[in-house]
């Protein structure tokens, strides 16, 4: 005998912030601060980096690209990680806000990936004499970009929001596993052929303090901007869902 029994659960405590309306209030309170802080960090960090740091003795002025390249690369990876966590929360606890936050983070993640790819390519042209090389690190980044594209395409292809949330979450899990697998595969693949260009021109030990502090400020700026954008976009998604919900009921009146 199968008995299926469904009683809605109501969250409490920390998870009550997973209630969309509560979340909207919360984000509205902290968003202005976030916007301002991220703008300050970005402006200060980038101006500091661009105008007030010396040239590297080997790389010349191109070293200034580091203030864009490294923060964006960091955020590109962390955005995916955040989506993975949010997807897990949705699959396990079914809080709408976390699913919508994952949805909201994806476009931000792609743009970060694009920035990292673009600045890297622009950097690579003077340093390696080529825009692009099939170096393992660059390659695995390109694969990450593809995963982002697939994830976003799946979200937009499915009409029912809950179905879309479930499917994209499953894709995010499986995709993460395969992203790690690809990373190892790519390492293996390129060692065998000894690709000339190497990324380790400038290992961390070489990064002098003059470069290091503005870099930290820029990283902080990118992190704050990421959170501001994701929070705001999550709010947008919540409003769209609410509009949809209200319209659905209105129509049947």
């Amino acid at each position, binding site marked *: 005998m199968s008995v299926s029994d469904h009683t809605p659960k109501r969250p409490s405590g920390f998870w009550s912030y997973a209630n969309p309306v509560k979340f909207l209030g919360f984000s509205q309170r902290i968003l202005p601060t976030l916007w301002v802080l991220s703008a300050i960090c970005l402006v200060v960090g980038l101006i500091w980096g661009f105008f007030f740091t010396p040239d590297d003795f080997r790389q010349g002025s191109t070293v200034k690209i580091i203030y864009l390249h490294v923060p964006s690369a960091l955020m590109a990876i962390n955005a995916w990680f955040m989506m993975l966590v949010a997807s897990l929360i949705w699959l396990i606890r079914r809080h709408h806000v976390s699913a919508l936050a994952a949805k909201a983070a994806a476009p931000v993640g792609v743009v970060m990936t694009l920035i990292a790819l673009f600045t890297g*390519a622009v950097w690579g042209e003077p340093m390696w004499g*080529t825009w692009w*090389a099939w170096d393992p690190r660059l390659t695995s980044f390109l694969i990450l970009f593809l995963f982002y594209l*697939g994830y976003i395409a799946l979200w*937009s292809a499915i009409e029912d929001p809950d179905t879309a949330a479930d499917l994209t979450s499953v894709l995010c899990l499986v995709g993460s596993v395969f992203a790690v697998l690809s990373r190892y595969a790519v390492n293996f693949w*390129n060692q065998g*052929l000894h690709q000339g260009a190497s990324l380790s021109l400038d290992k961390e030990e070489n990064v002098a303090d003059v470069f290091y502090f503005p870099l930290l400020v820029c990283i902080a700026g990118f992190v704050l901007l990421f959170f501001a954008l994701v929070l705001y976009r999550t709010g947008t998604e919540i409003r769209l869902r609410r509009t949809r919900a209200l319209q659905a009921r209105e129509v049947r009146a």
Partner: protein
Amino acid sequence: MKALLKRDLMLAFRAGGGFGLGLAFFLIVTVLVPFGVGPNSDLLSRIAPGILWLGALLACLLSLDRLLALDWEDGTLDLLATSPLPLEAGLSIKALAHWISTGLPLVLAAPVLGILLNLPTPGYGWLVLSLLLGTPALSVIGTFGAALTVGVKRGGLLMSLLVLPLYVPTLIFGAEAARRGATGMDATTPLLMLAGITAGVIAIMPFASAAALRVNLR
């Protein structure tokens, strides 16, 4: 006619309509080639023009599937065939919508993907030009293939099979032009041939497509 074009574009750009997917497929094929062939940049730059043309062609091909099949399945084609619009015009419009939503983005994306494959610098202009001239022919020929196979459920693969041989002349001249351009040779002759093919195909194919579709509707 305008209504049909508008609707087709609207459907293509709306969620799930497939806009951007051809592009994504192009990107992915280009990315996968080095995984298959190996990361040697010299080798890659030699095969780059050919692979880019082939990738664009495959992306075009795969998106043909939705060109008529969806309209067939939900009965729209039956209704269109009994509407005042002549079938030839309708199919031309559909090919145009396909080109705008698939071919054109491919042309624009090709140079970016050229970077990934180390396309030699002089090749970019020629690549874009040859694709610009060649992709309309791909859409029009593809419409014919779609019209032939529209009655076959999930005829996608069968259609690929029928259409690919028809794509051969376009591919040969297009890739030849891009390759000559990339190696600094003169590429006007293959480009002229390519333009000729495209013009001829645009003028004649819609009649063949309409004839095929009429048979299928029967």
